[in-house]
């Protein structure tokens, strides 16, 4: 039909206006744009827990419907949404211990790494497992900054708005997080050297 409203070309802020008028098609379009992103954000922030990620995704979009009138139109919608998501994660961290789920446990020591076979695939896999483990053990602010920057690929400015801090603070947190992770994963130096040898 010619006169059916099409929301594909509407901005996020325009869609929010339509949602305020009970337009389910506008809401569906907004969900299609951000549902998967937000779900993955929750998945990483809440210890790779799919069930919790589903619950939180549903909750946040319910808030989008209910708090539609309180949405500040001057603020970019994605910034507002991620700020809401970050606050939800902060509350979850306060009330319960977020444990990493569905990650294989691999305990490493200096001896283990010395005896490890130099199969790149196996070493890389272990590196990734331990990276996830270490990421999950970061405090909420550093973890949020890292996830928003290297997973959601937001700019420093956007992260500063979401976390309500200065851009300099965001940069410091990122740098500190990278250095801390590098320190914790020092034991995997052999993996890195092998990669460098292969790339040369």
């Amino acid at each position, binding site marked *: 039909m*010619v*006169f059916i409203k099409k929301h594909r070309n509407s901005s996020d802020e325009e869609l929010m206006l339509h949602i305020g*008028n*009970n337009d*389910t098609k506008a*809401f*569906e379009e907004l*969900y299609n744009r951000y*549902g*998967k992103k937000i*779900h*993955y954000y929750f*998945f990483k922030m809440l210890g790779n827990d*799919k069930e919790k*990620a*589903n619950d939180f*995704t*549903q909750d946040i*979009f*319910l808030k989008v*419907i*209910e708090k539609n009138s309180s949405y500040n139109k001057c603020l970019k919608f994605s910034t507002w949404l991620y700020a809401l998501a970050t606050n939800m994660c902060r509350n979850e961290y306060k009330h319960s211990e977020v444990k990493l789920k569905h990650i294989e446990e691999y305990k490493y020591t200096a001896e283990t790494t010395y005896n490890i076979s130099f199969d790149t695939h196996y070493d*890389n896999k272990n*590196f*990734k497992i331990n*990276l*996830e483990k270490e990421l999950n053990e970061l405090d909420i602010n550093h973890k949020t900054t890292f996830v928003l920057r*290297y*997973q959601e690929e937001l700019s*420093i400015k956007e992260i500063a708005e979401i976390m309500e801090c200065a*851009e*300099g603070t965001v*940069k*410091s947190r*990122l*740098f500190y997080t*990278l*250095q801390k*992770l*590098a320190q914790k*994963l*020092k034991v*995997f*130096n052999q*993996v*890195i050297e092998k*990669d*460098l040898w292969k*790339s*040369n």
Partner: protein
Amino acid sequence: MEEQLNNNFPEYEKLLKTKDYGMLSDSERSMVNRFSTEEEYSRIRKIILSNSEIINEEKKTVEPDPEILKNLIRAMKPVRASPDAYKVVKNIFEYKIPAYQFALLAAASILLFFFILPSERIVTVQKPVYVYKTDTIEKFIVNKPEPKVQNSAPINYAIKDNQVTLNNHTTPDKSQTSNDNNSSLNKLEILGINVDIKDKIENSKSKGWSMLDDSSLVKFLVKI
């Protein structure tokens, strides 16, 4: 250090994502060395690249439950079940449609007016009117303006006992009961058609007329 971090961190990050330590130019290397050693640089680069690989792998399999959207739409409707009347009226006036849709609507309206409505224009048609009296049927041809309808049935009146019957519908006869020959015109409205009975049937001699009785025929005239 803080100031250097503020100014150079974006560039430092960019190098981490794109170049190994061995591929850095002299100026780049001197900038990197302000933040980390070669070993640290390599480890951090590995962390960033591995993190990207983890994300790319997980995004293929990690998806939200499809029931979430259905639940949300279901939840949406009752919340706004009774919209504010003022808002509804305001939205009607603020409703925007693209210009091409408006142009299409205007063109469709014009086409409707020119091609469809003329078939319903009022035209003057000749309709046969049959007046039934006892043993006699009189036919009058009248010119009457009405909507053009194909195969419209002729109008049939039957007059009996001061009742005018039209196609089985009985309407009250408002004609006078006096024996006055100069009775005023009585108007009878039957489905929008004014029927003037110039003279009353009661003035006739007796029940039943024949075609031979011209005077009776002359008396009885139905004017439409």
